[in-house]
């Protein structure tokens, strides 16, 4: 009993802490600051608490929370991201009138995020996933500008679709596997009815979060519209929840004919498309958003391979998680960095510039960075799965990444977002720098190939050089992205159209067609006829009596 309480505290507590912290917002200014640290318990739990689970049968449909390896990995980077973003954001929004409101949504989303990671059963996962999705809406529309509201509309529409897909997917999976607990979900044979539906719905539900093509449209809009720390979270943590969803629900380790290739193709499209479109952006945030899309492309490919080659599934999943880990820190740092470029002192600017280069290189996969490690893991998986053919295109994609990064740095130099960073922002930023630099030290099995062979150096470097040279050529040729830029939300379907407009309708129609009286003339005619009969009866009373008598006689006689 007692250790149930303790476990609950440890394994569910991190998710509830941010919500528990909300009342502080009503407290005095000094106390309020503590809200920025809401993610601390989660981080501590991730680093210190041993693996384990706790069952809460009375909660939801019989809830189970716990830390397994996947959960721990996710929790580590998610928690540190939220922590950094919280600290940074608190002072970033110092002058903002709606800071409290922002942190309400911020903490709610945080709680959702941690809950998603700690949940070990479908229902709880669903609950926290919804919390994460809906709360993030508040982050997207925080500025209330028309762009922000538009981004919000697109986002929420996709969220609803995703939620519904997820609902259906969960229903199907639970019915197919016969359990709501992830650990007990059996692998369903490829022939099971509705399995394909389940997979499709799962891909859609989480593909929206992860920004898989063509469900990525919300991502550039939202990242651009949201305040910088929020963008960092969206790109660093939120979209990773999608990956987690795939890992939790997809039947990795069993065949999924058709789906595997579909995902690999989609992944490749995302990697290249994201890179190219990103390179043609005029807003650094948008560029970063597209880079996220492209990076998630890599992960999509990995999942595809896991579905294609069941034996390679464990390695592939691990690689995917590592990739997410690395990308989370790097991308978050890039975003936050964008808000630091207003640094006043020369030294400060230098430091910030350095702080931008680091994640840029990491994302491009330069040696000695977490990116290189992640990418080499990825390649290892490709080799093991016998999909070496993908190695080259993925490296080529890295070149694209380089383009996007250069574009971003270029745009960041002339960024307008220039108010001098406060101490808090620095603190958050440094935290991320540390994380980004140390990221690869978290990869236990990665330390081995941290010292890389020459050809590995080569294979890591040539895409970058390629990218640089392309940019150089472009520089000489004076390509102007003003001419050939693509607006954020490229293929944005007319999703906003699906938003119901208020059509003023005569709302009592329904009622009135039921109380319609017959037309007066008809009524009068009926009245006349009736009264005629009545009068005639009265006049012919005797006759009627005689007739009745006759009738009765006949009836008896018959």
């Amino acid at each position, binding site marked *: 009993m007692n250790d149930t309480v303790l476990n609950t505290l440890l394994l569910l507590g991190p998710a509830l802490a941010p919500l528990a912290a909300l009342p502080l917002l009503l407290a005095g200014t000094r106390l309020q600051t503590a809200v920025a640290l809401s993610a601390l318990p989660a981080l501590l739990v991730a680093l210190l608490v041993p693996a384990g689970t706790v069952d809460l049968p*009375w909660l939801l*449909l019989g809830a189970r929370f716990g830390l397994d390896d996947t959960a721990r990995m996710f929790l580590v980077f998610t928690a540190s991201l939220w922590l950094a973003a919280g600290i940074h954001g608190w002072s970033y929004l110092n002058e903002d009138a709606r800071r409290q409101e922002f942190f309400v949504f911020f903490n709610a989303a945080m709680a959702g995020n941690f809950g998603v990671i700690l949940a070990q059963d479908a229902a709880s996962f669903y609950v926290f996933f919804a919390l994460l999705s809906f709360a993030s809406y508040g982050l997207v529309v925080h500025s209330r500008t028309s762009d922000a509201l538009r981004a*919000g509309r697109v986002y929420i529409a996709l969220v609803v679709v995703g939620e519904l897909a997820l*609902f*259906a997917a969960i229903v199907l999976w639970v019915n197919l596997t016969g359990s709501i607990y992830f650990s007990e979900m059996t692998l369903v044979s490829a022939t099971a009815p*509705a399995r394909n539906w389940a997979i499709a719905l799962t891909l859609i539900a989480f593909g929206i979060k992860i920004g898989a093509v063509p469900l990525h449209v919300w991502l550039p809009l939202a990242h651009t519209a949201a305040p910088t720390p929020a963008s960092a979270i969206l790109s660093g943590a939120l979209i990773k929840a999608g990956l987690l969803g795939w890992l939790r629900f997809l039947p990795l380790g069993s065949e999924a004919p058709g789906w595997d290739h579909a995902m690999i193709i989609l992944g490749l499209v995302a990697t290249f498309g994201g890179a190219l479109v990103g390179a043609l952006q005029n807003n650094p945030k948008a560029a970063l958003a597209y880079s996220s899309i492209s990076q998630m492309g890599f992960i999509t490919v990995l999942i595809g391979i896991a579905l294609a080659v069941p034996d390679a599934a464990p390695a592939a999943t691990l690689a995917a998680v590592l990739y997410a880990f690395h990308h989370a820190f790097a991308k978050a740092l890039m975003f936050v960095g964008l808000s630091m470029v207003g640094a006043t002192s020369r030294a400060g600017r230098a430091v910030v510039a350095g702080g931008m280069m680091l994640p840029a290189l990491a994302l491009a996969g330069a040696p000695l960075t977490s990116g290189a490690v992640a990418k080499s893991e990825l390649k290892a998986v490709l080799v093991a799965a016998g999909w070496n053919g993908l190695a080259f295109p993925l490296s080529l994609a890295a070149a694209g990444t380089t383009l996007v990064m250069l574009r971003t740095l270029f745009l960041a130099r002339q960024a307008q977002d220039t108010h001098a960073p406060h101490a808090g922002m620095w603190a958050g930023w440094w935290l991320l720098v540390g994380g980004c630099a140390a990221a690869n030290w978290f990869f236990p099995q990665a330390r081995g190939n941290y010292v890389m062979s020459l050809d590995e150096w080569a294979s890591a470097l040539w895409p970058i050089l390629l990218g640089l040279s392309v940019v150089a050529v472009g520089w000489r040729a004076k390509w102007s992205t003003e001419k050939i830029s693509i607006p954020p939300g490229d293929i944005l379907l007319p999703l906003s159209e699906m938003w119901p407009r*208020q059509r003023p309708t005569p*709302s009592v129609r*329904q*009622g009135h067609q039921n109380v319609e009286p017959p037309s007066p003339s008809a009524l009068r005619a009926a009245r006349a006829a009736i009264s005629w009969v009545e009068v005639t009866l009265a006049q012919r009373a005797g006759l009627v009596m005689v007739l009745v008598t006759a009738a009765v006689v006949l009836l008896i006689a018959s």
Partner: protein
Amino acid sequence: MTDPWIPLVAVGLPFLTGIVIFMLDDRQVALRSLLNLFGAFAKLVLVGVMLWGVVNGRDYGVRLAIAPGLDVALHVDALALLFITLSAVLWALTTVYAIGYLENAAHRSRFFGFFSLSIFATTGIALAGNLFTLFVFYEILTLVTYPLVVHRGTQKALAAGRVYLCYTLAGGAVLLLAVAWLHALAGPRDFVAGGYLREFGTDHQFTLILLFGFLIAGFGVKAALFPLHGWLPVAMVAPAPVSALLHAVAVVKAGAFAIIRVVYDVFGVEFAQSLGVLGPLALLAAFTILYGSFRALTEDELKKRLAYSTVSQVSYIILGVAVLGPLSTIGALVHLVNQGLLKITLFLTAGNLAETLGVHHVHEMDGVGRRMPLTMTAFTVGALGMIGVPPIAGFVTKFYLGSGAAQAGQWWVIVVLVASSLLNACYFLPILYRAWFQPQSAPWPNEKREGFDAKAVLLVPVLFSAALAVGAGIFANAPFGPLEWAKLISSREFGYGP
């Protein structure tokens, strides 16, 4: 051992309360309020006693012979308890609310009198032990709710009342025919889990199908099944507590509950299946769900939109009934409760808006979230719950309905659920968007009250019901929760648990 007194008191209490209240003068506010509250909370206590007793295997029942082979029978079983508990709790809430809502309105004694009587009827429906009794109380319910619908006494209200009576009385007539016919056919029988008509086997096939149709038609009027839903949106002229009571508890639920009784305890779900009547019923319910949602999209008047959403939501229950299988049964039964909690929250909040700001239409709701944060929080809970966003009660229902459909291999039901949830989102989210993320665009139509949010007496019930709705979701699996009862009943019906 059967104990006759508890059910008798449970039914008699609201009746007496109502009668006494009729006697009171309109100005005796304190006494009347006291009576109301006494009635409401005494009922709660009674229900508690019954819950405790039934859990400890006690049997409450009483019967009174009307004619040879014709009894009025009250019996407390799990299903009855589920419904009566719901009604008792929500009655208490609505009573508190109504006292605040109607202070210094006209004809209050009349209003509260009929208010109590409608709970008397609802209790009777819940405890009815056989079809005859159910029918009797069902008709009583029709009568005692009519004065509540026309309470405002305007021509519009009267027209609405006329529509209401047209539908309900016509339904009642069909019902009378069906009930009497069944009585003539099968003799005096009490409700029994698994139904008692199965012994007919293959005789009277046609008649039984016909009677099933009649019964569904009769009860479907109150349950607002598709062609018979017309009265519901029109009845929106009634005061907010009435809408809440009618739409969340008394009338609509009575219809759904009665249909549950018919399918499970008269025909028996397996037998109904063998008659081939469940399929059409499911289709009808599904259509109603989508139709209601579509109509709700276009309604600008808040209460009307809610009404159509009710049309759609109640059919979830019937859909769950019509889909064979324990899981969907659980979904149906638990939705009986969840929809009640959510809908009453929504209607009471709508009442708050109307009472405090005179806001009746969606387009007037810009920025109302800042003006009435607590009320709108409750509203948000209700709306999200209706969409099925966890952890609010609604999602439990949808989960079980979906699982049931999957279990029965009727995948199309899942499609319907998803589609309807999408529509719900389409007509609820814009409201939330206006309320929370839009600045106030125009002065409030008729601001009756300065200061924070609404009157406390209006606010507390709303928040409480919202809390209940959330609780019913978060602690769904908790012992003695609605879900527990639903599982119990379902296992009773199917002889095996889900």
